[in-house]
């Protein structure tokens, strides 16, 4: 073997090993994050976290009941607005869309999807907070629904277009009208995919912080939908940025709860999808 060939072989070996190292680093990051967060969160979490309201700065103790309930309120609002709109728009794009208008809607959905979430927050501030003269869970819900709509629309469209044309033709040949075909054949055939897309979308908005900072704001109490409302992500941010070690402890606990919820939703969504898609491409 000549020197040059030996060099080429060594180089190949070294570079390919390096790519393996890169992959291991990327995956190790996840386990480091998860491990460190659970380690710190587990030491910090206690029963009060789930049962008590948060306390103002300077007072000891307190939990995050208000933030947990607030997050639920905001997410439910976003789901109530975002999922139906996104789903129906997805049905339009997949089943009724013509050339130009569907293209335009698709383009706008992708554009909206790429908008930084803080900019969505500014928009929700302008259209909800300003007219209502104050922060509210409603404004936070609207902000998050604007993130959820394009995600749901595009994933619904994607899974519905992958339903084979022959299934539709079968139903139409039996005399079903188009909307009946969609409602009884196409949507059921794609339901796993649609559900997966929706769960992933909700998991995504559950962790969003930036659009909530100046829409839902924060509060130490449990309030109605038209009043400032605490949420877990905003609480993590405020607690982490403070100088109080006790508050840092609460941030770790909240971080662990939020991360586990989001990862759980993601894993569940993927399991639903991998348990067998009803439709093969």
């Amino acid at each position: 073997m000549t020197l040059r060939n030996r060099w080429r072989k060594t180089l190949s070996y070294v570079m390919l090993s390096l790519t393996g190292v890169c992959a291991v680093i990327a995956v190790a990051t996840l386990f480091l994050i998860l491990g460190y967060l659970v380690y710190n969160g587990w030491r910090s979490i206690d029963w009060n976290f789930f049962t008590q309201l948060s306390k103002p700065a300077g007072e000891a103790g307190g939990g995050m009941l208000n933030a947990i309930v607030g997050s639920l309120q905001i997410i439910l609002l976003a789901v109530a607005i975002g999922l139906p709109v996104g789903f129906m728009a997805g049905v339009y794009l997949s089943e009724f869309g013509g050339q130009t208008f569907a293209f335009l809607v698709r383009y706008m959905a992708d554009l909206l999807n790429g908008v930084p979430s803080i900019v969505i927050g500014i928009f929700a501030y302008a259209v909800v907070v300003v007219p209502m003269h104050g922060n509210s869970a409603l404004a936070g819900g609207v902000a998050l629904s604007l993130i959820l709509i394009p995600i749901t629309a595009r994933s619904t469209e994607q899974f519905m277009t992958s339903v084979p044309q022959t299934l539709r033709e079968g139903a139409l040949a039996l005399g079903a009208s188009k909307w009946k075909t969609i409602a009884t054949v196409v949507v059921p055939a794609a339901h796993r995919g649609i559900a997966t897309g929706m769960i992933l979308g909700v998991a995504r908005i559950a962790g969003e912080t930036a659009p909530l900072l100046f829409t839902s704001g924060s509060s130490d109490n449990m309030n109605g939908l038209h009043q400032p409302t605490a949420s877990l992500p905003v609480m993590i941010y405020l607690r982490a940025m403070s100088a109080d070690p006790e508050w840092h402890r609460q941030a770790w606990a909240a971080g662990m709860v939020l991360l586990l919820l989001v990862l759980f939703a993601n894993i569940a969504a993927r399991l639903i999808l991998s348990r067998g898609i009803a439709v093969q491409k």
Partner: protein
Amino acid sequence: MAISAAVSAPPPTGARALLLRLRNGDEVARLITLAFASIILAVTVGLVYQLWSTCALPRHKFGFGFLTSSEWNPVTGQFGAWPFIYGTVVTSVIALIVAVPLGLGAAIFLAELAPPRISSAFTFFIELLAAVPSVIYGLLAMFTLVPIMREYVEPFLQKTLGFLPIFQGTISGYGYLTAGVILAIMTLPFIISISREALLEVPTEQREAALALGATRWESTWQAVVPYARLGIFGSVFLGLARALGETMAVTMVIGNDHKVHESLFALGYTIAAIIANEFSEATADMHVQSLIFLGLVLFLLTIVINALARLLIIATTRRGSS
């Protein structure tokens, strides 16, 4: 189609036609879904209009000078975006410098080398990494990355490369470099998963041809496979870049919040998203609020341009791959 057209009577016209069409459920369903689809259109157009119309004050007062001025002073009413644009671009570039080689390496491993089972398990974990909320990256960065940068990485860089102006100055652990590193970790999953898909689209013949000519495994990968998938890889980089530009929470928590432009990467800085997050709810003067919205508009335009580029590149590769 041809048969039904032949047997049906000539189509009715005018108001009667509309009524007939509405009696048919399909037309109603179409109109309902159309209405929901229009909401997406209305929201996007409304967003752009709202941003544009509510930043009229600074647009008229400063014009394009807003983008180049470095003065940001709510007391005197002088607002300029340059330090924030600079911070956004610098942190994103650092993110790409770290994430692109690492991400491309990992994607090559997952697409070319790893057995399918390992590849799909790793991809699963990497995609979970993309789902971690940004405030959690920020929390971890504040308490782990900042001390590591302060104690080890930044002193090391100063000792070895300290002759460069970008590695001089005081070390605090916060600042451009730390923000760039956390952004790198956050963009990595996007770069890996999309590059991997682009690499998987490359036809096997491409590899076989290179190997048959006597290329080593690495030469075939680097000279035959990667160039073939280059558009998709660039697409993934642009997608990562768009995400890094608009990223708010993690950066806000470690950037250090300083309204000036600094040469040193160890210095405290600011990004567009971070200043909006910090000052928007406290701003009271109209000029201040509208200048922040103007910054939001700049960020919006920046990310749509980058996103559009990314999408074009990704579409270009998947088309060619499937044809």
